[in-house]
């Protein structure tokens, strides 16, 4: 009897404690926003530092900081901190005219000196600015910045639009020149931060442009895609970025979630060591391409059949994607692939693996785990190449092994998620990847003079028709020569709260256009 009473008391205590611990945490969902001027964003991106070369991309997308040049949804240069710019007839002197009412978040005016200081600093940091032949950056007048080039470079505005070239107030830097405060000039200012996972933004009192409807933003980085999907499903955030393929498919069928998707300028490519004795001819590379079942990978792994890449860049990158019917498409044809290899002298052995001059056709495929679908695509390719008679060893390792393997010459094949929108125009990445000598993430030991020459012409050419012709010829040459083999494109899925209007998904990931968003009436 006594024991029973003790047991009952202890049980009720335990129940009470558990209930209390559950109830002390009041539930709040993003949907409960009453003010309707706040926005809650969840994404996978972490901010471990405020340094523009490392984390500037998120502050640019969130409209905290501005670059001298902005871009529109099609990737064309648009006014940013500079309302307009002029270029001298010889293409060497660029003059940028700053927006007169621009102020940093500490209230200080944006001056030509502060812009020049930021750009000079960016030039010395890892980024893209060093790709331009910049001779000097100077303040020509209180609101005019002059950039002198040693040779014409038409893509300069695109480089200036990059997140590593965002302009911060002089007070943002400490005595060592490190960024200690995020003081940009965009509509939103950083008011609270718990790095690396969350920060809060509020409308800056110094913003003189159109006043946005969203005045307060909370960003939370959630690294697990499973958690992000559950957050989206239960409306605990208004904008949720990036899901794994399985969650994306589930969310697409969830009537309570509005999904917006955009094809990114990012392609999963098979980087080939074209100097390798097995891969140093076009026919072998074409055979590899013909053996890839892109539709199967896109449907089975990415759960989105349209993402099968029949050329390097997706349709959303209109300037570079070749939509004409005469343009040859990449496709699958295993029988043709086998014929091409047989013509190279490869003969199947007893285990089905091809042999030539006593050597097995065996290659290592290196990939990275940063995007969870990559190792799965790599094993799919392993199986598809096995059917062709090629033995593939898959190595999943740190992303830096790809550029390192490129430099040491030890890389045989690499499966990489190449971002062609490092700056809004894919030209810059293409130039990095396919210039003479190739690129860390692009061509490797590829002997070709045509593509580098065309890239050089685009860099200096400003006439649109000529540029379009060069772009076509570059894409055609890459399609035929296959220094890298496109496998699938990427799609950025965004779960949007049903009452949030004006959401645009930028395929170039330059901005979230938060200042254009509005909450619809209940």
């Amino acid at each position, binding site marked *: 009897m*006594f024991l029973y009473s003790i047991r009952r008391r202890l049980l009720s205590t335990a129940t009470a404690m558990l209930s209390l611990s559950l109830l002390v945490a009041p539930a709040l969902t993003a949907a409960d926003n009453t003010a309707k001027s706040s926005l809650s964003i969840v994404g996978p991106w972490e901010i471990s530092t405020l340094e523009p070369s490392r984390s500037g991309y998120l502050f640019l997308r969130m409209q905290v900081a501005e670059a001298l040049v902005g871009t529109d949804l099609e990737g064309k240069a648009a006014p940013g901190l500079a309302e307009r710019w002029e270029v001298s007839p010889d293409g060497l002197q660029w003059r940028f005219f700053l927006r007169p009412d621009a102020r940093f978040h500490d209230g200080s005016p944006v001056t030509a000196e502060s812009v020049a200081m930021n750009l000079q600093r960016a030039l010395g940091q890892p980024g893209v600015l060093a790709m331009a032949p910049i001779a000097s950056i100077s303040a020509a007048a209180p609101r005019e910045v002059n950039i002198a080039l040693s040779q014409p470079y038409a893509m300069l505005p695109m480089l200036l639009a990059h997140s590593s070239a965002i302009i911060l107030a002089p007070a943002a830097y400490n005595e060592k020149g490190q960024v200690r405060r995020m003081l940009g000039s965009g509509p939103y200012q950083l008011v609270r931060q718990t790095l690396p996972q969350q920060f809060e933004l509020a409308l800056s009192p110094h913003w003189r442009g159109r006043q946005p409807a969203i005045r307060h933003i909370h960003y939370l980085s959630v690294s697990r895609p499973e958690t992000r999907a559950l957050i989206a499903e239960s409306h605990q955030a208004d904008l949720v970025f990036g899901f794994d393929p399985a969650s994306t498919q589930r969310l697409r069928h969830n009537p309570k979630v509005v999904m917006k998707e955009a094809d990114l300028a990012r392609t999963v490519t098979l980087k080939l060591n074209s100097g390798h004795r097995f891969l140093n001819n076009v026919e072998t590379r074409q055979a590899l391409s013909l053996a890839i079942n892109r539709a199967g990978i896109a449907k089975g792994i990415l759960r989105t059949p349209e993402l099968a890449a029949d050329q390097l860049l997706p349709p959303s990158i209109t300037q570079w994607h070749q939509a004409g019917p005469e343009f040859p498409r990449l496709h699958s044809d295993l029988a043709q692939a086998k014929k091409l290899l047989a013509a190279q002298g490869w003969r199947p052995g007893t285990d089905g693996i091809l042999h030539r001059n006593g050597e097995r056709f065996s290659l290592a495929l290196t990939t990275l785990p940063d995007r969870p679908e990559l190792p799965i695509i790599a094993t799919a390719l392993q199986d598809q190449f096995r059917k062709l008679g090629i033995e593939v060893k898959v190595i999943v390792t740190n992303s830096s092994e790809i550029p390192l393997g490129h430099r040491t010459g030890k890389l045989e094949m690499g499966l990489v998620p190449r971002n062609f929108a490092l700056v809004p125009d894919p030209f810059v990445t293409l130039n990095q990847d396919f210039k003479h000598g190739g690129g860390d993430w692009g061509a490797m030991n590829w002997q070709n003079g045509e593509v580098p020459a065309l890239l050089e012409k685009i860099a200096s050419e400003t006439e649109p028709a000529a540029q379009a012709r060069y772009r076509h010829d570059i894409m055609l040459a890459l399609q035929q020569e296959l220094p890298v083999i496109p496998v699938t494109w990427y799609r950025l899925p965004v779960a949007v709260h049903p009452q949030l209007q004006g959401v645009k998904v930028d395929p170039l990931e330059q901005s979230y256009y938060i200042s254009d968003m509005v909450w619809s009436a209940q």
Partner: protein
Amino acid sequence: MLNIISRLLFRRCLQAVIVALLVSTVSFFLMHSLSGDLAFRIAAGRYGYDMVTAAAAEAVRAELGLDRPLLQGLLLWWQQLLQFDLGDSYLTSAPVIDEIREQFGHTLQLALSALALSIAIALPVGLVTGLNPHGWLDRVSLALSIILRAFPPFLLGILLILLLSSKLGITNAANASHEHGGLLLPALTLALGLAAVSSRVARDAMVEVRRSAYFNFARTKGLSDLLALLRHGIRNAAVPVIAYLGVQLVFLMEGVIIIESLFAWPGIGHALAHAVFGRDIPMIQGTAIVMGLLFVLCNTLVDIACLVADPRQRYLVTRRADA
């Protein structure tokens, strides 16, 4: 009593110095013996895979002086350590001590909440089942303990998000702050794993106490069950439970790494995972030292708690010292 505790503290302080030296040296050699090029790995951690290039890696190599010989690097590290300087993070360039201070506070908050919650669950369950061993409640508790301990924390966390956040709407799935119940789900996920075992330890200790001669004597001399439990039972049963709580720290530290990532909790476990991927050697070494010292501190606290709870241990220590 004070004399015994001060001797214990002195011994533990010596241990802490040895642990700090050993952990820092071993972690230094371990990090430098990992495969791959250090500069490339750090560049990937800093700039992400889109921007890691050979040029960025060489800039990192020059900036951090990664070309210096290993022995010189070790001597520099020891020199820093003697000045209580853990260096600057390779990834963020901020002082490691500042990063750890910020992150460790979050982890401590999560760990202590999980521990408190696990005690709140395990003790009542353990005591009740221990008072009636082999009853239906004991069997159910055993089955639940096995299931909860066998569940990987990651899966348990997902299930709790599904149940408490998505279905019932009691709390948010992830929120790295006190607000909106951000602490509840990660703490509960860890606590359930801890309580699964500590409830069984408490139960066994209670069974042992109930079978003991002193408990039966207390009942025989006329004390009620409740008084016998309060005066003679709980204190005796507490010693193994306290000792086991110290052991559970290992489970706790193992759990926070995945739990912090799952629930976006900005603690040291999450930071450690990132530091390992990005080869942030100063951060890893600093974290390893702090973790090592934390274990020494916790073991000291457990020892003191056991000495306070159990007079027999104080007696034994005094006798050993006299001998």
